[in-house]
């Protein structure tokens, strides 16, 4: 990679992140996040509209198709900012829809006027996305869709391509369950729903990329959770000293920092490799590794964050709790850690010379 390209992505990422600041309060306030909990679909349409207006949904749409044609690094930087702010809007899901549909992404969606979410996952603990077809129509179900009840449209992956269906299509049912972060996790069921299937040559790759981008959301979350915990360690006193002066906590805090830095390095190196041509098994391996690291480092950070906050860590009133709950909800997405290890195990003998 030459210097010019390097600069390109850094500059692009900076612009994207700057624009995302419109969504994530500069002062770090989590009031909106707190207020939105257990309300409606779990997100605000206004904010989706704002994201649309900023062009975020066009990030992964190629320039030839009228998009921004940005890379995974830029998208990861965006996701990181969103994670740091615990933004509940399903922006990444719409970005994935754009990545899948390219020029076919409806203009209303791109502009943020209509909300389109991607419904790809056939079952929990699996990365299967090919289901959802039966007798030439959509049938079956797609799971694990945050905010599903707030969607106007779904981009549905199937073995035969991507279907765009309105949420009120006959035979389509959305159900959802409350999650600990105050959001709602949806399932979309199809009972012979008519839909046009748009061809997409690399659905699996696109979903893999979305899994990587989501790692960056977790990264942002854990970076901020670590920062909040370090602040607490500096000010909270016990036995007449700030608790951050106790060596046992200091050593554990350095471990949290290392976890976060490893996640950051792995995510952006993998994004760079994918941006610069890595695909196939190498990409799958890299993504699985990032998911493993991002989920384990996030859970480690929030576990330690609770412990270091003491009793405050298990209350609803301390902000750290918002990060804990969000981590519980999000770290298991894209199949969970056990699946990642299985994928990596299965890939062990691929490309293995000996």
């Amino acid at each position, binding site marked *: 990679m030459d210097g010019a390209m390097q600069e390109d992505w850094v500059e692009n990422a900076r612009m994207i992140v700057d624009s995302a600041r419109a969504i994530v309060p500069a002062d770090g306030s989590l009031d909106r996040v707190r207020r939105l909990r257990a309300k409606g679909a779990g997100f605000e349409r206004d904010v989706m509209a704002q994201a649309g207006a900023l062009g975020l949904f066009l990030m992964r749409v190629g320039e030839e198709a009228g998009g921004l044609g940005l890379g995974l690094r830029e998208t990861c930087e965006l996701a990181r900012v969103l994670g740091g702010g615990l933004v509940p809007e399903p922006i990444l899901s719409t970005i994935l829809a754009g990545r899948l549909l390219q020029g076919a992404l409806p203009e209303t969606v791109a502009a943020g006027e209509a909300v389109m979410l991607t419904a790809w996952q056939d079952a929990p603990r699996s990365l299967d996305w090919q289901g959802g077809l039966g007798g030439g129509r959509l049938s079956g179900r797609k799971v694990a869709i945050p905010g599903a009840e707030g969607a106007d449209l779904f981009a549905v992956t199937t073995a035969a391509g991507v279907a765009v269906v309105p949420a009120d299509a006959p035979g389509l049912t959305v159900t959802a369950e409350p999650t600990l972060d105050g959001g709602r996790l949806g399932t979309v069921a199809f009972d012979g729903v008519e839909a046009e299937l748009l061809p997409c040559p690399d659905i699996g790759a696109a979903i893999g990329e979305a899994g990587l981008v989501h790692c960056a959301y977790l990264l942002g979350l854990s970076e901020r959770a670590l920062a909040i915990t370090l602040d607490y360690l500096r000010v909270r006193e*016990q036995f007449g000293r700030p608790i951050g002066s106790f060596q046992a906590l200091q050593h554990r805090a350095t471990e949290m920092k290392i976890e976060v830095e490893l996640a950051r390095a792995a995510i952006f190196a993998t994004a760079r490799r994918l941006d610069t041509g890595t695909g196939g098994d190498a990409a799958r391996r890299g993504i699985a590794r990032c998911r493993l690291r991002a*989920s384990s480092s996030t859970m480690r950070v929030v576990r330690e964050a609770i*412990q270091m906050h*003491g*009793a405050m860590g298990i209350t609803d009133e301390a902000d750290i709790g918002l990060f804990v709950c969000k981590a*519980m*909800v999000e770290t298991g997405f894209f199949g969970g850690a*056990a699946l990642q290890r299985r994928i990596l195990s299965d890939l062990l003998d691929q490309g293995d010379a000996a």
Partner: protein
Amino acid sequence: MSTDYNAMSDADFRAMVRAFVEAEYPADLPRYALHRLHWSEVKPWYLRLSARGWICPTWPRAYGGMELTAGKHLIYIDEMERHGCARVNDIGPVMLGPLLIKHGTEAQRARFLPRILSGEDIWAQGYSEPGAGSDLAAVRCEAVRDGDDWVITGQKTWTTLGMDANWIFILARTDKTVKKQAGISFLLVPMDAPGVTIRPILNLERDAEFCEVFFDAVRVPADHIVGAVNDGWTIAKALLGHERVFIGAPRLSASALARLRLQARAGGIWHDPAFRDRYVTLACEVEDLADLFETYVDALRDGRPIGADVAMLKICQSELYQRISDLGLEIAAETAGLGEPPDGDIRLHAAATWLSARPTTIFGGSTEVLRNMLAKAVLDLPS
């Protein structure tokens, strides 16, 4: 005088407890609940235990207790756990009662013990303060003598189920001129006294499990002190007897493991070799802990003294409980963050287990404070 349960064989005693529990545990109360239930929910069960004379298993029979030996008490606990009985508001039976029996006046015993037995009084504990979580002796809540009253001003926090209580016992500073442990007294305060205010604290599931209690010039009569003035720290520290052992009992870990097994079966990964490799490691740890626990129970049974090393049990149990719950959350994957139990089965609810495991390393002596203590008192490492 009530029955001498210790005269029964262990097997007979167990059968009796089991039969009672199976017959009397209210059908509409949850079993194997992970959350503490409120008094409004658990009251019928408290009253049935009370009516049977079983609400205070460790109190002397002379005071209306069962006076169980450690061995019998363990069986009693076992059978309650086995049926999944909800924990009642037990601060009175477990903490205040034994304390009054040991340190109270005859008048205090006569006044308070019967009302605990009957369920008329529900007690809460007021030890922690906002500035002093791990450092319990850093009490700032103050009690000043004014004529025949103590006048209490200050704040307590992390009072479990405080909103259900009509009485609270607190540690209050009665002498600011001496070293911090030496100027603390143990006081009894009615929750409806003028100047007492309660603010619930929501936990991460947004249940009001704890509360803050504020005291604004609250007056209690002079005889509401237990033990001598400025001797409260000694009393509070000596409070826990058996409890120091039972707080490290493997039951939370064991039941989390059982739930993990059910969850793995329900999730179709019970036969996955990689999962099993992790599972058996945790299962062994639970059994190892149970064996270590048993050595302390043996000591209790034999009347041998329990040393500071017993804190190992609590460290071990709470961290193991958390690690088991971590694996449960991991295998739940996309369903890990659900707010309600899958299929309505609380045992499959990994998130609830995970959250319920968190406070165990914080309350009742944080792991860090216990490790500091072990390093000095047991390992004899220098300060």
